[in-house]
C-alpha cells in the first residue's frame, strides 16, 4: 500500500489527465492509480464529474441538426451543385 501511495498521482496530474487525452489514453496501471485517487479525493471527483457533464452538454448542443428545414437545405444544395 505504501508503495502504491508513493506512485499515486497528484491532484494536478489527475486534473491534467481529465482535461487532456482522458483516462483511456493512459496505460492500465496509471488508470488504476487515477481511479483510486478519484475514489479518495472529493475535489478531483467533483472536477471529473463536472468535466463529464460539460462534454455531454456540448455533445447535445452541437449534435447534427435535423428536421424539415435541414431537408429543404439539402435539396437547395443539391440543386445548386447539380449540372446547370
Amino acid at each position: 500500500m505504501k508503495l502504491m501511495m508513493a506512485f499515486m498521482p497528484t491532484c494536478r496530474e489527475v486534473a491534467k489527465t481529465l482535461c487532456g487525452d482522458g483516462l483511456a489514453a493512459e496505460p492500465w496501471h496509471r488508470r488504476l492509480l487515477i481511479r483510486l485517487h478519484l475514489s479518495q479525493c472529493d475535489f478531483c471527483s467533483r472536477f471529473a464529474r463536472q468535466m463529464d457533464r460539460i462534454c455531454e452538454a456540448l455533445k447535445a448542443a452541437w449534435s447534427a441538426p435535423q428536421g424539415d428545414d435541414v431537408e429543404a437545405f439539402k435539396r437547395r444544395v443539391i440543386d445548386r451543385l447539380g449540372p446547370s
Partner: protein
Amino acid sequence: MIESGMAITTTRLSMEDLRARKPEALTAMVNDHLPTLLAGALAIGLSRADAEEVVQETFVAFLTGLDRFEGRSSLRTYLFGILYHKASNLRAKARREEGSDDIEAVVGARFNEDGMWSRPPRGPEAMALDAETRRWVEKCSEGLPDAQRAAFFLKEVEGETPEAICNVLGVNPTNLRVMLHRARLKLRECLELNWERNR
C-alpha cells in the same frame, strides 16, 4: 430538380460520378455530410444563415477542386477542413490561438507546489444535464476561439482521431492537446463562475 432522400452510402461514392455531377452521387454526398458540416459550422459559432452559406460554399469548393482530394483523409474530414477555413475567413476574427503555452502553465494556476488543489473546483456536486446547464455550456462555448471550438467539436462530437484533427486545423499534436485542454478548462471555469453568481 434532383430527388433527395436517397440512402446511398459514402462507400459507394465514386469520384468519377461526382466529377460528372451525377445526381445520385451529389445526393449521396450531401445526405451523408451536410448535417455534420452544418453542425460543425454552428459549433464554430456561425449564425444559421452564415453556416448554411459556408456549407454550400464548402461543397462547391470541393467539387471545383475535386482532383486535390487524394483520399488520405476521410471525405468528411476533408470537407470539414474546407469548411473550417471558410468559416474562419468569414468570421475574420479567427482569434489568435494560444497554442504555444504548455499544458502545465494552463493547469498550474489552481494547484500548489505539491500538486494539491490551492483553488479547489467549486460548483454543484452533481451537475444536472438539464436544459439550463446545456444553455450555459453553449453560452460559455461562445467565448472559445474558433480553433478550440472546432477541435472540441471534431474530438468530442465527431470522435475524430487526433491525426485527422491536426490535419484539418493545421496544428501539431502538442498544440492540439493544449487547445483541447484550454477549451475544457475554460468551459469549466466559465460554468463555475456562472454557478457562483447564481447560487
